[in-house]
């Protein structure tokens, strides 16, 4: 009996900036923050909303009557964050709180810098601690501190400040940028793991659906036609045909090959599904549908568990496959 190695997995980090236009209400709020002022908006019932809302929660009317509120307020409820996660305002144990600023009727969620849970309570007075360089972002409020905290209290470790967005007219903030970074443990399926490990040994392993008998490479775990697990492994040769292709002439960010170059669907001999790869070793305008190709492997010492082990496909010089033989793969 053999035990199979667990599926391959790798850390995957995703990073992008949410760049958001703000509109008249949130734009005014963020502009205020950049000037170290906090403005709320007055609702139809006279209640002052901080943070401001764009539409009245009762009547749904657009709101536009702004009022500046105090930078000190009262904790309505709090919770203890013993293990802060990345991006949170304070990077050591701290309290989250809903804080009703004086002059406001709704509460703002933010972090409060206190040493321990026994240093905060509902009803406690807290005040804003601003960042050194406000940019028009909710993080301009660095965090809150107890109202009686000394001004020279050393600051806690914080998350990096968000970047400043360009301001069209130099003063009002109409855009905010929030960097998003998410980390995952990205796992491939057991079938894909066997396929990738085989690639690491220079082999191409597909799988046959037990129902329709189609051979998939890469293997997919389940047949997309029948929805049943694909279990039978099939080793495929590194030769096949170009079913269809395109010539890339347009440069783009992150491009690794100088245009023009050919990206083609390669159908390996014995496979029923084509995959994308590069065709090189001839002029781009010589590539044609039905052309026979062979894999060009990278030097063995560069192999990893990846399709990158095949650098590209090259014409094999054999006669083209007749159109009828691959028409159903297009």
């Amino acid at each position, binding site marked *: 009996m053999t035990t199979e190695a*667990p*599926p391959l997995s790798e850390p*995957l980090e*995703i990073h992008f900036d949410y760049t958001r236009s703000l509109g008249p209400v949130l734009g005014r*709020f*963020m502009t205020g923050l950049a000037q170290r002022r906090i403005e709320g908006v007055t609702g139809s019932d006279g209640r002052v*909303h*901080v*943070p401001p*809302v764009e539409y009245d*929660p009762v009547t749904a009317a657009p709101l536009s009557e702004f009022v500046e509120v105090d930078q000190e307020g009262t904790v*309505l*409820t*709090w*919770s*203890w*964050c*013993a293990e802060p*996660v*990345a*991006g*949170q*305002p304070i990077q050591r144990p701290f309290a*989250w709180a*809903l*804080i*009703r600023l004086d002059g406001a009727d*709704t*509460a*703002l*969620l*933010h*972090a409060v810098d206190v040493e321990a*849970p026994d240093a905060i309570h*509902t009803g406690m007075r807290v005040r804003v601690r601003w960042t050194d360089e406000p940019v028009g972002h*909710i*993080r301009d409020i660095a965090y809150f501190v107890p109202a009686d905290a000394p001004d020279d209290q050393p600051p806690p470790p914080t*998350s990096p400040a*968000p970047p400043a967005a360009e301001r069209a007219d130099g003063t009002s903030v109409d855009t*905010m940028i*929030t960097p998003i970074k*998410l*980390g*995952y*443990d*990205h*796992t*491939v*399926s*057991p079938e*894909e793991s066997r396929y990738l490990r085989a690639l690491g040994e220079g082999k191409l392993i597909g799988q046959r659906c037990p129902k329709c008998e189609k051979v998939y490479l890469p293997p997919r*775990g*389940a*047949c*997309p*036609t*029948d*929805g*049943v*697990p694909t279990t039978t492994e099939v080793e495929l040769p590194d030769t096949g045909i170009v079913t269809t292709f395109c010539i890339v002439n347009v440069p783009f960010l992150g491009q690794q090959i100088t245009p023009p170059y050919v990206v083609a669907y390669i159908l390996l001999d014995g496979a029923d599904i084509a995959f994308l790869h590069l065709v090189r070793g001839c002029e781009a305008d010589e590539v044609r549908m039905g052309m026979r190709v062979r894999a060009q492997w990278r030097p063995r010492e560069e192999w990893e568990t990846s399709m990158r082990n095949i650098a590209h496909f090259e014409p094999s010089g054999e006669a083209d496959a007749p159109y009828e033989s691959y028409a159903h793969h297009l």
Partner: protein
Amino acid sequence: MSYSETGSRGGATRPAVVGFAQSDCVRRTQGTTNGVEMLVPTLAEAFEQTGLSKSDIGFWCSGSSDYLAGRAFSFISAVDAIGAFPPINESHVEMDAAWALYEAWVKIRTGEVDTALVYGFGKSSAGTLRRVLSLQTDPYTVAPLWPDSISIAALQARLGLESGRWSEKDMAEVAARSLADARDNPQAQRSGEASVADLLDAPLTADPLRAHDIAPITDGASVVILAAADRARDIVSRPALITGIEHRVDSPVLGARDLTRSPSTEMAGASLDVGDVDVAELHAPFTHQELILRDALGLGDGVRISPSGGVLAGNPMFSAGLARIGEAARRVMAGDADRALAHATSGPALQQNLVAVMEAQS
């Protein structure tokens, strides 16, 4: 029964649950984030239960999240699990699959199809769940602070504790009952015997919450099959007819809500006939949230709450709400209940809520 009246208006079709299957609730699967490995056996089980096959299904709808998977259009890969060629009539919601069930319910009500299969899946363990979930909040004034889901729920819990709406003991009782009930649920992730006193002796992990107040991080998937009432009886002997289903949402502004109540659940429940239910499966990822929901739905002591153990025994993101509907329906189909209520939630601090009422089809 409100439905026979509705049914007589233009002959709209009444959907019933005829099948339910779910994967084991586990802390971490070795599978991919596209859920195929969890879905293939779960789908097979639902088909076996109902005697239906892929070609019998008129409409497919799923619920999952790209943020959980860490990749765009992750649900597209999941479609491999259902065998989507030749093309099928398919849709997806970026929500708990309970809302996918709502879409399927509408599809059957309109008469466009008479069967539908709903599935949800999520690999919560792939990322840092409480951090990923902070991206559900307002993207201007809240999400940039990355408030984690546990901290937000803890703010809600304290409001109830300090206002006297509930006590730590009430919360521990919810946990103790859930864990005890989960002993009969072979698919539960957590179960066991724990006294309320012992639970209250445990340290606070997210003051005022203790570990037992917080649903576990769970990978899982579930499948529900719906059929129009006139077909349902051919599939199972006792279909769980959906006599009403509603969903409502509260403001995304956490500081403008009374977090000790759930107006959206109250409204969804008020538009249905929730009286006389024998059993209620509630989607309450935190102990105090069950207390809020019981109050919002007016569920008295005579109603059996979450006999599966509920999501405190296993909370597979994006399928746990659908599984509540499945668990409630299963009890009707098995003859253990005549009328059952199911609830699903989505978003921070019970922001959005769906309530369904089912009864044995006569």
